[in-house]
């Protein structure tokens, strides 16, 4: 047991006055801090986790001796969300005020006013609460070293959400930088429950390289560089070579909070039936509304923005009692979201329909029920969401799953069981992205001159980059300096230059300014503003692609009066959504029905729609892939008839029909059905590996089927199955050959290179790596313009330098994020020799849901583009002949 005298009297009195006693993990965190240890605290929400993170700092600050010189920042708190940083600032003020501590705690986010930001630079607060992007900006600032010299503690909140991402890579690099500025810095991570705490510890920890390289010897010898003036290093400096950095998770101590009560999880079978297919759970809305009516405050989670809009709309149609039900998702304007959050904090709301925007963040004591509409997709995410209910550890959280289809019913059941058994989804280990490293290197050069070897060591002390090779580091530096091209055109335009003493720095102030405007590792999908207004025809000022030319290359034959910009902004939405709509279509946004008028540049113009029934937009499924762990549970449940009894009667019946009409595969088998329908022949598979892996598989299979002369016409995928249809029957195919793992070799490479996914991944890497810019001084490019020009750049670069750093980065991102190639590889290995083929004469019960999805997908890619052109041409000929 930890001795309670860890708390100074002022603190224990404060706890006592509040009627609290310090929790074991809070005291443990104080003890770790006193011992100068880094610590990762894993605790469920509601356990006083944030306070546990700050207590050591509050104590140190309260007990510090008065000093004459103004102190620098003592504790830096990093949150993934701006709102959370602001909220924690507010919560932190309570103990500071009540104990009468003389401590200044302030937040700094993208929304913080310029005067406050300037003041924070001159007079730093004791505790600064901020985001990873703001920290990256700080680290790219000339005064960074002095500013952070007094830093004793960095606290990373929601570390479980932060580490497995590019933001996490960037943050790890910046923390390594801070450690250089302030060697005695202590690292603290706060995390929700995770499957493998060691992964988070490794990310957070400082990594020491086993053999320190002979620094003086290497750095002192100025040699003519190979490409960017770098030291020639076929083998790199001795001691810097592919030797593995010691992955030292033990440098971070683990502190576990107490478990809290087991959540109560139920699966709703509304009206005793489960629909065949769908994503919206519309059938269950009346019952969901009734349950909300009986609860104090409910959080209604969905998986996509448009599901959120839909559910919100449906609930308000039923809301005869006028219950305060609100909507919260990433497309709403920040102001609207803040309003909802404030109303929630006041306890004014009975329910909020929300997306992952509320997965984490501010504590709301009043939430007593979490409803998950449509399947949860992963057990860990669900545990996190359930944790939002009832922040009193002794009372169980209540959660209700509402499956939208029969396969989702299986998934919900599996997720509920997994949560009760406390099994969570595993995350793969992460290797830091090189485009993020490029941004960091540029930031370092903006801040102060650096020597390559010093920076290399610092970078490798960050968990995600512990194994970074000298070659890769050199490649990144060369990329930052000259673009990293085999053609040495840009040597005279270098962005960073090496002086005669071997120090690298930014070439000039312009380069520095441009870097600062483009910091960050989040590349959101192209987003357009949704504005009220008629819109006009696209005019030059709105639609001309900047980088690509027409705007600057060509002057209009006549000039046009600048179109009056305007229309109240009601929010933002992904551009792809509006590309599917034609003017006049009606859709739901921000809880109302709108008519889409036009898309002009980065603005979508809409007007309130007279119709009450919107034309249903094509609902996407979940944007989260089904977790591997949950998928395996679903397969097991499907095979084990004893488990069927836990399912509603209509689902049981459906499975019994499937068994009679087709077959139910063993747990380790994959079912593949072929059957004719209409003039087409279908091949439906059920790998349960998530939509991403299925889409990749379908793309690759389609190529193979095309070569076999089967004439594949199209495919559709969901989280559970994929369906390919063709001109000719596919009953007689050599299945083992078709599914051979070698499809992940050349076939994947060929397809990837021309796929739009690669182009999208390349765009993201090019933005993060600084090849293209998000913002130019005085103008912001819309994502639309960026999309357009990076495609051209991608095509040219791929042809002339296929091994370029950014193409490598894009390939890696596409393979992991967009394509789930690793998972597909596992699938192919798993089903080798275990494909159960059922040749049927008509559609099977299992196949119905995926058949219903046909027609929702849009055809991407060049081949489809050709077909569209050909078809449009046919239309024209038909028109001419009629």
């Amino acid at each position: 047991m930890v001795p309670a005298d860890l708390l100074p009297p002022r603190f224990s009195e404060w706890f006592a006055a509040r009627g609290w006693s310090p929790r074991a993990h809070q005291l443990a965190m104080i003890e770790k801090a006193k011992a100068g240890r880094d610590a990762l605290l894993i605790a469920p929400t509601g356990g006083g986790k944030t306070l546990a993170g700050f207590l050591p700092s509050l104590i140190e600050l309260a007990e510090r001796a008065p000093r004459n010189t103004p102190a620098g920042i003592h504790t830096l708190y990093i949150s993934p969300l701006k709102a959370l940083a602001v909220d924690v600032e507010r919560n932190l003020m309570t103990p500071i005020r009540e104990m009468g501590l003389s401590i200044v705690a302030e937040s700094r986010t993208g929304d913080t006013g310029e005067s406050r930001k300037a003041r924070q630079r001159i007079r730093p607060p004791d505790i600064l609460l901020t985001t990873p992007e703001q920290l990256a900006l700080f680290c790219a600032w000339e005064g960074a070293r002095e500013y952070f010299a007094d830093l004793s503690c960095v606290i990373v909140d929601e570390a479980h959400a932060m580490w497995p991402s590019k933001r996490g890579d960037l943050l790890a690099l910046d923390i390594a930088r801070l450690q250089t500025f302030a060697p005695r810095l202590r690292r603290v991570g706060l995390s929700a429950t995770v499957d493998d705490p060691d992964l988070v510890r490794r990310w957070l920890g400082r990594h020491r390289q086993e053999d320190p390289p002979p620094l003086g010897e290497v750095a002192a010898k100025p040699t003519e560089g190979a490409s960017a003036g770098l030291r020639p290093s076929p083998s790199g400096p001795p001691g810097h070579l592919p030797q593995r950095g010691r992955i030292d998770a033990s440098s971070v101590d683990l502190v576990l909070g107490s478990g809290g009560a087991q959540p109560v999880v139920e699966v709703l079978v509304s009206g005793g039936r489960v629909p065949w297919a769908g994503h919206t759970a519309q059938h269950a809305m009346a019952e969901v509304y009734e349950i909300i009516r009986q609860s104090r405050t409910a959080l209604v989670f969905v998986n996509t923005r448009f599901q959120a809009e839909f559910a919100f709309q449906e609930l308000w149609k039923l809301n005869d009692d006028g219950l305060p039900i609100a909507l919260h998702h990433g497309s709403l304007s920040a102001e609207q979201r803040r309003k909802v959050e404030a109303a929630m904090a006041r306890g004014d709301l009975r329910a909020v329909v929300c997306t992952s925007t509320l997965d984490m963040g501010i504590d709301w004591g009043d939430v007593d029920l979490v409803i998950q509409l449509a399947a949860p997709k992963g057990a860990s995410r669900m545990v996190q969401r359930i944790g939002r209910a009832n922040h009193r550890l002794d009372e169980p959280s209540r959660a209700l799953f509402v499956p939208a289809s029969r396969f989702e019913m299986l998934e919900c059941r599996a997720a509920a069981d997994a949560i009760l058994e406390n099994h969570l989804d595993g995350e793969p280990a992460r290797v830091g992205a090189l485009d993020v490293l490029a941004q960091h290197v540029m930031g370092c050069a903006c801040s102060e001159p650096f020597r390559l070897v010093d920076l290399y060591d610092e970078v490798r002390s960050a968990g995600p980059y512990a194994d970074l090779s000298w070659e890769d580091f050199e490649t990144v530096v060369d990329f930052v300096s000259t673009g990293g091209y085999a053609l040495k055109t840009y040597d005279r335009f270098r962005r960073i230059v090496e002086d005669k003493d071997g120090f690298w720095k930014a070439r000039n102030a312009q380069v520095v300014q441009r870097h600062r405007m483009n910091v960050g590792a989040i590349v959101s999908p192209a987003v357009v503003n949704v504005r009220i207004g008629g819109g006009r025809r696209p005019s030059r000022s709105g639609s001309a692609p900047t980088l690509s030319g027409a705007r600057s290359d060509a002057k209009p034959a006549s000039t046009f009066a600048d179109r009056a910009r305007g229309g109240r902004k009601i929010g933002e939405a992904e551009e792809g959504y509006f590309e599917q709509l034609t003017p006049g279509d009606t859709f739901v946004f921000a809880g109302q029905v709108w008519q889409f008028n036009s898309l002009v540049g980065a603005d979508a113009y809409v007007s309130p729609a007279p119709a009450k029934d919107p034309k249903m937009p094509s609902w996407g499924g979940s944007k989260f892939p089904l977790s591997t762990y949950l998928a395996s549970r679903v397969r097991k449940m499907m095979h084990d008839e004893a488990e069927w009894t836990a399912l509603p009667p209509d689902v049981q019946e459906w499975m019994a029909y499937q068994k009679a009409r087709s077959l139910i595969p063993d747990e380790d088998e994959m079912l593949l059905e072929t059957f004719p329908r209409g003039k087409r022949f279908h091949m439906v598979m059920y790998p349960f590996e998530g939509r991403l892996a299925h889409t990749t598989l379908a793309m690759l299979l389609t190529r193979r089927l095309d070569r076999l002369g089967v004439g594949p016409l199209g495919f559709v995928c969901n989280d559970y199955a994929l369906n390919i249809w063709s001109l000719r029957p596919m009953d007689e195919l050599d299945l083992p050959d078709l599914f051979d793992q070698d499809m992940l070799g050349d076939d994947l490479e060929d397809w990837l290179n021309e796929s739009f996914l690669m182009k999208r991944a390349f765009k993201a890497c090019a933005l993060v790596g600084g090849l293209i810019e998000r913002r130019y001084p005085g103008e912001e490019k819309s994502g639309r313009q960026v999309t357009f020009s990076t495609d051209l750049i991608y095509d040219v670069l791929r042809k002339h330098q296929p091994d370029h750093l950014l193409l490598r980065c894009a390939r890696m991102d596409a393979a992991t994020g967009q394509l789930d190639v690793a998972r597909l590889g596992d699938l192919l290995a798993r089903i080798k020799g275990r494909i159960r083929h059922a040749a049927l004469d008509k559609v099977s019960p299992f196949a119905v849901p995926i058949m219903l999805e046909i027609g929702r997908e849009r055809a991407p890619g060049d081949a489809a583009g050709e077909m569209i052109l050909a078809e449009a041409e046919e239309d024209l000929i038909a028109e001419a002949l009629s």
Partner: protein
Amino acid sequence: MLLAGRTVLLRGSGALWLASERALVVADLHFEKGSSYAARFGQMLPPYDTRETLTRLEAEVAALEPATLIFLGDSFHDGAAEDRLAADDADRLRALAVGRDLIWAVGNHDADGPRALPGQVIDEMAIGGLILRHEPEPGVQPGEVAGHLHPAARVSSGRGSVRKRCFVTDGQRLILPAFGAYTGGLNILDQAFAGLFAAPPLAGALGGRRVHAVGPKSLRPD
């Protein structure tokens, strides 16, 4: 197709072929556009656009063996672009002049035309009953062939939509797509194209191997 009464060939590459004069016309190559960003902003776009454009141009020259190669303006992205040409790219350009005439019409980006490269610099020219110039003149201009606007079409059918560079013509005048690797496109529904055609024009969308004729009903704004 027939342009103002005479037969011309629209190539899938975006070039125009005048068979009886054995003349190949290309517009808006914007050589060294990539390096202009490095020079002006320190933004390191891949410096391969010039050779990419050259490769496409050489393929057309090899296929058609023109006697005259006409650049319809904006061949260079800026006044200093010629000096930034990589040595081997400049060699390839000079090689194109061997055994044929190069004619450089000037555009707004390269108002002076090339200084060191072979060929003749002109403002506009008449050939086989057609007028070739960089920037389309306002109003109806029978027989004019121009570039400058970088036309592109968003073509839509029941299956979705696709955006391609395109020729635009009403049978009287013709606007060529930009030939350069880094040149973007301006939607032909943009007002910049309004008033140039007597009748609603057809788009000739570049589909890789061939040009697809697309009528107004299949066109969409961006």
